[in-house]
Structures are given as structure tokens and as C-alpha cells.
């Protein structure tokens, strides 16, 4: 089964290129894929008709227990034969119908894609797999309806179909998940009625699954999309919107009937909705003058009747269901294709302009006649048996069935009238006023309708063949218990036959009186103005307006409101979390003794930040920010974090330089805070609340014990494992080197992004001799040796970093500061010349060294970045040192790159 699917998918993938190479003849080749599937299905007939099933299963998402399992039983085989059989004829037909369309290849691809999805749907045994195929058919239907997307009507129809069936699909997914959970089984074949029907979730499952099925099978009130979907090319209407896809909903109903059909709610809902749909479809069909729309509405009627037949759950009802699916697919497919041919030949589908076509298109006419007889339910066609059994099934049911029988007699009579309209009005009588002179269509365009129509005739005449091979096994798959299947054309004078006679006479009467009936119907014009389509448009408009309002509320474009909301929400949640937090062992937290130096640092930091928030003068701002950073550095130093403190001092220095360089080009700050005092107060509240939440979270986290002994492990293993006394540095370049690699990568990327944002290299390469502020000769003379010393110091810091304060980060920052003074004093060109290497290249070399140091570990068959050491002459050298050099170069390159770009742009 997977092979059949795969074959069709392959055909789909090659369709566009084949079509380009072979033009319309590509269809002959592509039709082989569904034909092969059809033949394979035929070979499975003996197994399945004798009650066997064919199984295939592949693990798909084992973790979620989703399998790609296929199961071929009577029902699947019936649908599979229809999908592949009609599919073959449609592919051939489409080649002629759209022969001059420039996107024929794309059309083939969509069509075959749909075929694969539909085949997967009817073969799937897994609930989730079925859903995936289900949605795929919706998507392919969207693409096919909108195939002529230049046309606004097509686009609207496609979107409407997608929204309705897709929306129903969501309900179905929920329903299937509930179903799987309730029954504790994800295969259709292992679901049991006891587990499902008795479950407390059954009503929810029922509603959700029915929503999915009703939207797909166009039941009232979701029937809107089907007539509109006629905007698609006719092969699509014939295939998707009459023979296959719209029956997916009915298929699922039938599939679930054995496990869900036991409740009274199931039967009543299906019968009521089905009967309503049938009636609405039949009445609306007669108002149409476009042949395709007439057919679409009769399809709605048939879908309603099918739904209703499942609801009866009687032996006759279910037999009628299976026969009717077969009969309808055959005659409706034939009629649609024939209407396409008429359209193709005459250029119109309007009933009022057609007539007398039998003279020009005898073969198509014969096919239409045969199909229309089946459609009308006249003996000895298959449609007649379907109708007989339908009545028998309903009459069997009791009072509800009798009422629906009346509804059925009326709708079937109207169907007969519609069939008469299609055949008699377009093929017999006076010659119509066609826009084009008609001609008989090419062989592939009459072959399809003819084959299907003759099929309907043969199945009716030799109904025992159909019974043995197809109907019996399908009915057993739908029924809740064994059913005695026996088809016949003539069963004596039964109530069903009387109902049939009534139907036929009513139908003929309606046809004869059709003009009077139309006139009578137009009198009730207020009723026809209550169009579901208009309501749909209004609904969609409302939804868009509503969505727009919601989006406007949140996407107002104000950065400040976003931040305020974010801060407010996170503080509320943080405070809630603190209030609910457990595991607090000591309150107030056990703390270490107060360090006065650290406290002084805290006060300096707060003062600096406060000043930065309050002051307007740009120089003051820079100074205040620097003070804040220095306070933090002092704090770091006081709590015994020398490496961190040195890094902070270096970074703070660079921060002040960069800030000053940028701010001097900007205008003075105008106002402190917001102009609006109310908003200012709000911002004040948000900030204070956020700070409180921050402190509260921090206090809560330190109130518990420090989990684990990670710190102790690092301290103990630093020297023996990492050959370094500076534990912080060993962590950076050895124990957690992979983190560090990621971090220097971030630094490199941020610096490249920032440098690009700061602007390209200045056109004036010379003439920039540094900033005039450094114009003093004495200062300039001092700068060079100082820079030299700084470079030396940075290298020393790098080298000793493994054992003493220092390392790649600090060294890189110190070296960068050396180049900062050079660039400020002598200008960027001089600094570039002294550096000799282009900064981005420096970044690249640094990253390469760091990553390369990791590869050394790989060579020793160890994980990436494992350290490796050698000790020539007692001097311990290892890959972490190389890694640290990489860090050094990356940091240096990044800082210098940004600085050069900034200064060059300044000049």
C-alpha cells in the first residue's frame, strides 16, 4: 500500500518536468501511476471480499505511538478503487481539457498529490495518520480550487473551502485525540464500541468528530463552500468535489459507525442533519442555471442522504449507503466530466443557451443519458437499486424514518428533475445559441464519462457481481454486526417500490411544471436573500476587524509601552513565584559578614547609576556611567573576584571611551523622563516594582542552601586536572571551554554587526592624524612607549593567566586599550599600520585557534575540547593555553574592529 502511495507521489514530483517535455501527452504516462494502484486493488479483491484484511505498518513517531499503518478492508477497498480508478480517467481527461494551459504540469502535480493524500486517508488505520492525510486533502483542494488564481472568484472560493474544512479539521484533530485517549488505542482496527460509547468523553468526541465530518462533507450549515468550489477547473470538480474528497467526511462517519454509532444521539443527529442537507441542496439546485452549480447542489443532496443512511444503521440503510456511494461516484463523475466537455465544446454552461447538442456530440450525449438515468434512479441502473434500498432502510426505521422518507421522496424527485434538466435541456430539443460552434470532443474527454456511465449500467444489471466482490465486504466494515447482504432490482411490490413510483411521477411532474415552479420560487425572493454566502462574508469581515483591534492593542508600535508591560508582567509573576516558593530553610538568609569595601562599591554603583538617570549634561552622563562601573569593579574586588574586577575595569574604560565618542556627536538631552507626569509616575511604579521583584527573587534564591558541591569540585580538580592554579581561568578555558567558545563567538558576531552599523571605512585614508585633544607633543611622545608597555603587559597577562589573575579575556582587553590610545593619539591609519593585520581577520584567526584547540582533543579520541598536555622540559603546555590565545585574539580583534570603524566614521 505504501508502494502504491509512493508511486503516485513520484509521479507527482515528476509531473511538471514530464509535462514540459511531453506536453499534453504526459498525461498518458502519469495516468499509469493511479492505474497501477487500481490494478493492485483489483488483485486484492479476492482476499478482501472473502472477509480478509491486508495490513501494513511502519513506525512513524514511535515516541508518541503514531504509526503509519495501512489497512485494507471492504470499505477502504471500495474507496481506494474509486480514488485510483476515477483518478486514472481524470488524469487522462485533464490532459485534453487543459491541453492549452501553460501550467498543466503544475495541475498534474496538484492532482496526483491530492490522489496520494486521499488514498492515504482511506487506507490509514492510525488516527493521527488519517488526520494528516485529511488535512493534506484540504490543502490540495485549496491549491486546486485556486488553480486559476488570476480570478478573484477562485481565490475567494479556495479560501472559503480551506477555512471551513480546515476549521473542521482542527475540531476533528481534537476529537480524534480524545477518541484515542478514551479508547486507549490509536488504531481504528483496535477501537472498541464498549470503550468509546461508555466513556465520559463520548459527547465531546461525538461533537468534535461530527464537526470535522460535516465540514468536509458539506453538510448544512457548512455546505456553502462546495458550490463555490466549482470555480475550480472541471476535472477537479469531477474528482474532488463529487467523487472523492467530499466523501471523506462520510467515509470517516462510516468508519466510526461500528464504534460510535450505538447511541441515539449519533443516529438522530446524522438523520436530521443529513435530511436537512439533502432538502436544502435539492431545492437550491433547481434555482441554478449553470450546469456545474446544478451538479454541485445535487452533490450536496447526495452527501446529505449518505450521512442520513449511516444514521439509520439498518441492514437496508447500510447496503443503500455502500451502493449509493458507488453509484453516485460513477454517475456524478461522468456528469461532471461531460459538463466539462460541453463547456469545452460550446463555450458555455448556461442551461438557457444550450439545447440540441446530441447532433454534435453523440458520444458525450450517450454518456450523459446513461449517467442521468442512474442519477434519476431509473431501473435497471445502479442508482435505482440505491434508491430502492434507501427507502427500504428508512421505512424499516420507524416514525423518524417515515418522516425522512417523505423528505427523501421529495429530494429524489428533485434530483430526477435536475437529471432531466441536464440531459433533456442540453442535448435534446432546439439547437441552442452557443458562443462557439460545437464539435465532438477528443477521445480522452468522452472516454472518461462513457466508462463511468457504462460502469453504472453494468453494476446495476449484474448486481450480483457487485454484491459478491464489493458491496458485501464494505457493508460488513460499516455495520455494527454481521449483515445479510443481498442486492436485487425487483423485489416484488414493497413499500419501497411504491415510494419509488411516487418519486418518479413527482419528478416528472416537477420537470414538466419547472417553469411554473421557478416562477413560484422567485416569488419568495426574501427567502433567497438570506444567503449563507453573504453571512460568511460578513462574518469574515468581523473576524478581520476583531483581529485587527486585538493586534492594534498589542502591536501599538511604542517601544516604551512594550517594555513597561513586559517589566510589569514579569515582576508580578516573579513576586507570585517568590510568594509560592518552597525550600526556604532560613529566613533571613544566612549571610557572610559585611565587607565595608564591597558596601562602598555598592554605594558608588548606585550613586553613579542614579546620577546617570537624573543628569542631562553629556559629559556628566559619561562620568556617572563610569562611576557606576567602577563601583561594581570595587565590589568585585572586595568579594575576592580579582579576575572579574580587572575585566570590569578594562571594559568600563572602553565603555567610557565609546560612549564619549558617540555622545559628542549627538544633541544634548532635552528632558529627563517623560513629559507626561502621569506616565512618569506609572513608569516609576513599574521600575520600582521590577527592582523589588528582582531583590525578592535574589533573596529567595540565597535563602536556601547552595545545591551541590560544584564549587568544591572545581577547586579540587583545577590543579590536578587542569594544570592551573587560577580556578576561574581553568573553568573558562578547560572545564567549560565549550561555553567560552560560544561566548567569544557571540562577542565576535556582535562586534561585526556593530561595526557594520557604525559605517564603512572612511574615504579619507590620510589626513587623519588623531584627535586634536591629543595634539600635545609631550603626550604623543608618551603614548607610544605606553602602548608598547600595555601590549607587553597584555601578553604577560595572557601567559600567566592560568595560574595568576589574567587570561585571554583580560589580556585581550588590555591589548585593545593599547590600540585605543594609539588610534586616539595618532589616528586610525597609523594604528592600523602598527597592528599590521586587519581586525576581522584577527577575529577569524582567534576563533580558528580556539576551535582548533578543541580539535586536538578529538585527535586523542576524546570529546571535543578535551584538554591535552605535554611538558617539554618541565614547562606544561596544553591545548587550553592555545584556546586562551584564541580568546585573546578574538577579544582584541572585536574591540579594535569596532573602535576603528567608529573613529573612521567620526573623522
Amino acid at each position: 500500500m505504501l508502494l502504491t502511495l509512493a508511486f503516485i507521489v513520484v509521479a507527482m514530483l515528476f509531473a511538471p518536468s514530464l509535462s514540459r517535455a511531453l506536453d499534453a501527452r504526459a498525461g498518458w504516462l502519469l495516468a499509469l501511476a493511479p492505474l497501477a494502484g487500481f490494478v493492485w486493488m483489483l488483485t486484492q479483491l479476492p482476499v478482501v471480499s472473502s472477509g480478509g484484511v491486508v495490513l501494513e505498518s511502519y513506525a512513524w513517531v514511535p515516541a508518541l505511538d503514531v504509526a503509519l499503518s495501512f489497512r485494507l478492508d471492504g470499505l477502504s477497498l471500495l474507496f481506494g478503487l474509486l480514488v485510483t480508478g476515477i483518478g486514472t480517467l481524470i488524469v487522462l481527461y485533464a490532459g485534453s481539457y487543459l491541453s492549452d494551459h501553460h501550467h498543466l504540469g503544475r495541475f498534474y502535480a496538484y492532482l496526483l498529490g491530492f490522489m496520494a493524500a486521499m488514498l492515504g486517508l482511506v487506507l490509514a488505520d492510525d488516527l493521527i495518520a488519517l488526520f494528516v492525510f485529511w488535512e493534506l486533502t484540504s490543502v490540495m483542494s485549496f491549491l486546486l480550487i485556486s488553480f486559476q488564481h488570476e480570478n478573484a472568484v477562485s481565490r475567494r472560493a479556495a479560501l472559503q473551502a480551506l477555512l471551513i474544512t480546515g476549521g473542521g479539521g482542527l475540531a476533528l484533530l481534537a476529537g480524534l485525540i480524545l477518541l484515542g485517549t478514551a479508547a486507549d488505542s490509536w488504531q481504528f482496527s483496535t477501537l472498541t464500541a464498549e470503550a468509546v460509547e461508555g466513556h465520559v468523553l463520548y459527547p465531546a468526541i461525538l461533537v468534535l468528530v461530527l464537526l470535522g465530518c460535516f465540514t468536509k462533507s458539506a453538510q448544512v450549515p457548512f455546505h456553502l463552500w462546495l458550490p463555490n468550489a466549482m470555480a475550480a477547473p472541471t476535472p477537479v470538480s469531477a474528482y474532488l468535489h463529487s467523487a472523492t474528497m467530499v466523501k471523506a467526511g462520510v467515509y470517516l462517519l462510516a468508519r466510526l459507525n461500528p464504534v460510535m454509532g450505538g447511541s441515539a444521539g449519533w443516529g438522530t443527529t446524522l438523520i436530521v442533519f443529513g435530511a436537512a442537507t439533502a432538502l436544502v441542496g435539492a431545492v437550491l439546485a433547481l434555482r441554478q442555471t449553470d450546469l456545474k452549480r446544478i451538479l454541485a447542489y445535487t452533490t450536496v443532496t447526495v452527501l446529505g442522504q449518505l450521512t442520513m443512511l449511516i444514521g439509520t444503521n439498518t441492514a437496508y440503510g447500510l447496503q443503500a449507503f455502500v451502493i449509493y456511494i458507488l453509484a453516485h461516484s460513477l454517475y456524478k463523475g461522468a456528469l461532471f466530466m461531460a459538463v466539462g466537455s460541453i463547456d469545452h465544446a460550446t463555450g458555455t454552461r448556461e442551461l438557457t443557451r444550450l439545447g440540441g447538442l446530441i447532433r454534435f456530440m453523440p458520444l458525450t450525449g450517450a454518456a450523459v443519458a446513461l449517467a442521468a438515468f442512474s442519477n434519476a434512479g431509473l431501473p435497471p441502473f445502479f442508482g435505482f437499486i440505491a434508491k430502492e434500498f434507501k427507502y427500504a432502510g428508512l421505512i424499516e426505521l420507524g416514525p423518524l424514518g417515515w418522516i425522512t422518507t417523505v423528505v427523501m421522496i421529495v429530494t429524489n424527485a428533485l434530483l430526477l428533475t435536475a437529471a432531466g434538466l441536464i440531459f433533456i435541456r442540453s442535448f435534446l430539443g432546439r439547437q441552442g445559441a452557443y458562443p462557439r460552434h460545437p464539435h465532438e470532443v477528443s477521445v480522452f474527454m468522452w472516454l472518461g464519462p462513457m466508462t463511468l456511465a457504462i460502469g453504472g449500467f453494468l453494476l446495476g444489471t449484474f448486481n450480483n457481481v457487485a454484491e459478491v466482490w464489493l458491496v458485501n465486504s464494505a457493508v460488513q466494515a460499516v455495520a455494527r454486526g454481521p449483515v445479510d447482504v443481498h442486492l436485487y432490482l425487483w423485489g416484488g411490490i414493497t413499500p419501497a417500490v411504491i415510494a419509488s413510483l411516487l418519486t418518479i411521477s413527482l419528478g416528472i411532474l416537477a420537470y414538466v411544471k419547472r417553469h411554473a415552479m421557478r416562477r413560484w420560487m422567485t416569488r419568495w425572493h426574501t427567502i433567497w436573500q438570506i444567503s449563507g454566502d453573504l453571512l460568511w462574508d460578513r462574518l469574515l469581515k468581523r473576524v478581520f476587524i476583531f483581529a485587527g483591534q486585538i493586534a492594534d492593542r498589542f502591536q501599538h508600535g511604542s517601544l516604551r509601552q512594550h517594555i513597561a508591560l513586559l517589566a510589569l508582567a514579569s515582576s508580578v509573576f516573579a513576586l507570585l513565584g517568590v510568594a509560592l516558593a518552597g525550600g526556604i530553610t532560613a529566613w533571613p538568609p544566612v549571610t557572610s559578614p559585611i565587607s565595608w569595601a564591597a558596601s562602598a562599591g555598592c554605594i558608588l554603583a548606585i550613586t553613579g547609576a542614579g546620577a546617570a538617570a537624573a543628569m542631562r549634561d553629556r559629559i556628566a552622563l559619561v562620568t556617572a556611567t563610569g562611576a557606576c562601573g567602577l563601583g561594581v569593579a570595587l565590589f568585585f574586588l572586595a568579594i575576592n573576584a580579582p579576575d572579574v574586577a580587572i575585566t570590569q575595569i578594562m571594559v568600563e574604560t572602553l565603555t567610557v571611551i565609546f560612549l564619549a565618542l558617540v555622545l559628542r556627536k549627538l544633541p544634548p538631552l532635552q528632558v529627563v523622563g517623560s513629559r507626561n507626569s502621569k506616565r512618569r509616575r506609572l513608569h516609576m511604579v513599574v521600575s520600582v516594582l521590577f527592582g523589588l521583584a528582582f531583590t525578592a527573587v535574589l533573596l529567595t534564591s540565597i535563602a536556601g542552601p547552595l545545591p551541590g558541591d560544584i564549587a568544591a569540585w572545581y577547586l579540587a580538580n583545577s590543579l590536578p586536572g587542569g594544570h592551573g592554579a587560577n580556578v576561574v581561568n581553568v573553568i573558562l578555558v578547560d572545564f567549560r571551554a565549550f561555553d567560552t567558545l560560544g561566548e567569544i563567538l557571540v562577542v565576535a558576531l556582535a562586534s561585526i554587526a556593530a561595526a557594520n552599523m557604525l559605517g564603512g571605512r572612511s574615504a579619507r585614508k590620510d589626513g587623519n592624524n588623531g584627535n586634536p585633544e591629543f595634539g600635545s607633543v609631550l603626550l604623543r611622545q608618551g603614548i607610544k612607549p605606553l602602548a608598547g608597555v600595555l601590549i607587553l603587559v597584555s601578553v604577560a597577562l595572557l601567559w600567566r593567566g592560568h595560574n595568576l589573575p589574567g587570561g585571554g579575556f583580560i589580556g585581550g582587553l588590555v591589548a585593545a586599550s593599547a590600540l585605543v590610545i594609539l588610534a586616539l593619539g595618532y589616528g586610525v591609519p597609523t594604528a592600523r599600520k602598527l597592528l599590521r593585520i586587519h581586525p576581522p581577520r584577527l577575529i577569524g584567526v582567534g576563533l580558528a585557534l580556539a576551535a582548533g584547540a578543541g580539535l586536538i582533543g578529538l585527535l586523542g579520541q576524546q570529546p571535543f575540547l578535551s584538554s591535552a598536555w605535554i611538558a617539554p622540559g618541565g614547562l606544561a603546555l596544553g591545548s587550553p593555553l592555545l584556546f586562551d590565545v584564541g580568546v585573546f585574539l578574538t577579544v582584541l580583534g572585536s574591540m579594535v574592529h569596532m573602535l576603528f570603524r567608529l573613529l573612521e566614521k567620526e573623522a
Partner: protein
Amino acid sequence: MEIIAAITAGILVSIGVWLLLDRNLVRVVLGVVVIGNAINIAVLTGGRFNGTTAPFTSAAGVPELASNPLPQALVLTAIVIGFALFVFALAVLKRTWELHGTTATDRVTEVAEDDAPDLAPPALATPSAPADREGRR
């Protein structure tokens, strides 16, 4: 000491958020710096201040009361990354000023985003548009 540090971090974060909420992008950038400092203090506080010596070991053995080295390693890289982020923010600020001549946050959004083409007033699409545009300038 942890309590003082936690309160300090809270106050710094408050000031930082206050700066972020300012109309002027310059202050927003400063807010980024201040919040970065606060978070670094917070991370170190999370590691406790139990140690009395820096986290250095020697051949003689591990000191009894060395401070927690892990948060220090984390914060060290965070400082450098924070600086790169700061320069990036600064670059955005500078570019905004060069392109739009404004540094007010809510103004920038208005200036930077054009209307969707569908929403443009029809007057602009007609042939008389150039004259119209000249007039508006």
C-alpha cells in the same frame, strides 16, 4: 553582605528599567549598561560570598575558604559580551540619529516605517503625484 548586594542589584535594576522607559535612546542605551551591571552582581550573589580568599589553588592544596569560582567565570564572560552588546546598542543609536535625526524611541518607529503600499493614499499613485509631493515638501 548578600542582602546588601541583593538590594543594590534591585536598586540598579530599578534605575535601569527607568532608563529603558525613557523617551531618549541615549538613556535607553545607558539603561542596558546599568541592568548589565546589576545582573552581574546578582549572579555573583547567587554564588554566595562565603570565601575569604580568591579562588586560587596551589600545590600545597585547596584553600579552606576560597570563594566560589563558577559564578566568577560566568560573570567574566558576561561582562565582555555585555560590552559587545552595549557597543551594538550604541551603534544603533548613532545610526538612528544619522538616518532620522531623532533619538526619541516612539518617534523612531513612526519615522522608520512606511505605510503598506495598499494603504497609501490614492493621490500619490496618480500621475499628478510628483507635483503633489513637491508641494508637500
